[in-house]
């Protein structure tokens, strides 16, 4: 789903050991981050994880107890929001309801030395960029959700900030509109080349849009990687569970002559590499994770490309293009989810049917018992 990574410039924003407390509540725990010029960066986490606080700290709306926030190498401590080279798109869009669309977009240009005609031109160009050409004279309060979103973007981008901060910008839109805006935002970001920092709780949105994603839990960044690595090699079971669907099976890991062998319940033994253990090789008790799409149910006459294990179908969820099967391997307590693309002419299996499941040792991710 990810549109291919593009090279990003040197670090534009650097956060070093940023700490913040609200009374007894530890909102940000030792945040270290480097965000590059022109990067589309996402802060992803469940609500209350501190992602919005972190964004507002970069914007200058929140103070922090200790640590450093640098933008272009400049320490931002004591620099208020109105003096920072950042602009924000608010969750509620914060469109000024008493102004027209054009006045909203030109709002930030009030103090600029440009002439009035130049300001109008700049605002109109920004509106055109977000696909609202000719909307300038409409009343802002009469716009739809998607249009407000675009006005908010134009209003922030017209100032040519170094960083655009987006606080859950798509959460108020319906699904269709959201998917459309995701693609538009990616295009827009490439066009303007400005660093975007997006806050979202929607893992799919983060995967689709970002060059890199920082996953936050309880005020802490637990993993920061590009979407593919994050999806394939999550560093903990919690991250794995938060991003997409991950099946877990108990296993034991042992070492023989420098190679690691994982003995997985229901699947059997498999050789694994260090690369499959993102948080280090856990010898002894371990948990093995694998994505639903890495398993395939074999049909009659098909042979496994890698390994094969027998299982029983317990649940079938038909989605049209896809079918989700919950199958149970022999000697395993919990069922495992498999997602299969439906192929015309091939019947969906029934509940209770026996199935041969093909699996690949290379697709496994191995976690320690406490990871």
């Amino acid at each position, binding site marked *: 789903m990810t549109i291919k990574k593009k090279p990003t410039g040197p670090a534009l924003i650097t956060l070093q050991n940023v700490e913040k407390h609200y009374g007894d509540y530890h909102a940000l725990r030792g945040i270290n981050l480097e965000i590059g010029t022109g990067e589309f960066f996402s802060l992803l986490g469940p609500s209350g994880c501190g992602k919005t606080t972190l964004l507002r700290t970069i914007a200058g709306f929140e103070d922090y107890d200790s640590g450093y926030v640098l933008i272009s190498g400049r320490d931002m401590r004591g620099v208020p929001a*109105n003096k920072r080279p950042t*602009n924000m798109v608010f969750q*509620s869009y*914060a469109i*000024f*309801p*008493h102004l027209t669309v054009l006045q909203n977009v030109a*709002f930030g240009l*009030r103090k600029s030395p440009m002439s009035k005609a130049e300001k109008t031109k700049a605002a109109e160009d920004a509106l055109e960029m977000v696909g609202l050409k000719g909307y300038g004279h409409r009343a802002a309060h009469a716009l739809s959700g998607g249009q407000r979103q675009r006005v908010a973007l134009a209003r922030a981008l017209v100032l040519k900030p170094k960083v655009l901060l987006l606080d859950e910008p798509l959460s108020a839109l319906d699904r269709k509109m959201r998917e459309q805006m995701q693609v538009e935002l990616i295009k827009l970001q490439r066009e303007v080349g400005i660093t975007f920092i997006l806050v979202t709780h929607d893992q799919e949105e983060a995967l689709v849009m970002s060059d890199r994603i920082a996953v936050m839990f309880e005020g802490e960044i637990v993993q920061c990687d590009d979407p593919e690595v994050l999806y394939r090699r999550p560093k903990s079971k919690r991250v794995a569970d938060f991003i997409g669907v991950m099946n877990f099976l108990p296993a034991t890991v042992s070492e023989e002559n420098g190679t690691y062998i994982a003995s997985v319940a229901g699947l059997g033994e498999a050789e694994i590499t260090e690369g499959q253990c993102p948080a280090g090789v856990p010898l002894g008790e371990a948990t093995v994770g694998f994505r639903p799409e890495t398993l395939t149910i074999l049909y009659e006459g098909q042979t496994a490309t890698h390994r094969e294990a027998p299982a029983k179908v317990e649940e079938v969820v038909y989605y049209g293009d896809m079918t989700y099967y919950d199958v149970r391997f022999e000697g395993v307590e919990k069922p495992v989810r498999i997602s299969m693309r439906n192929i015309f002419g091939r019947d969906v299996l029934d509940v209770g049917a026996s199935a041969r499941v093909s699996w690949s040792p290379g697709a496994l991710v191995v976690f320690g018992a406490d990871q």
Partner: protein
Amino acid sequence: MKSLKTYAILYLIFLYAPIFLLPLFAFNSSTVIAFPLTSFTTEWFTTLLTLTEMHGALLNSLKIALTSAVLATILGIFAAMAATRYTFPGQKGIMGFIMLPLVLPEIIVAVSLLIVILRMGFNTGAWSVIAGHTLICTPFAIAILQSAFASLDPSLEEAAYDLGETPASTFRLVTLPLVMPGIISALLISFTISMDEFIIAFFLTGAEPTLPVYLFSMMRFPKLLPAVMALGTILVVLSVLLIVIAEFFRRRGAKRAGLKDTGGFL
């Protein structure tokens, strides 16, 4: 169902019939306030024009109402901002305490103010009525303005600040225009309350009576009673007009800010 309907109608008659009697007798040619009506006249309104003392009282009332309304609204803005934009220890208690004059018997307020003023060695006058009226109008202004400030999305102010404005210019360019309907509404309601208020004015007015106090003193002259009715008619019409205008602004403000109507005084 039917009995409820009858009840509602009777209730409305009970509420409004006395007020409808005002214009009825204001346009009736007899000096005696009694049925049957005699004939239509506008004579009593002309009489009003000749009562110079009343003109003084009216002017006095307008002055007092205008000043009290402005003072109450300014105080109301501060209080409403404190209540909605900040949190501080004891906030709820303090806000409740500020709203207390809303339920305090006016006679108590009037007597205590009178005692305090006289004890301090001052004379009563227009200024003491203004002080009393500001006291009773402020809670109304706060109630209206608090809902205006509360319905203002704080991220609007943050957005303006983020776009390079200072806190002062943010207030001028964003906050003030958006709460303006609330401010106008608070001004008009405070003005109306002060204009109609009798008890505090009666105690604290000194040598120059306000219109309601003057009206009360006119009651002693039966000859002038129809003129009082005429004056009352004018006051009722003006009061209703002001309240309607105030509500109009409040609703327009709510609509502009894209909010659901949360009710007001009407």
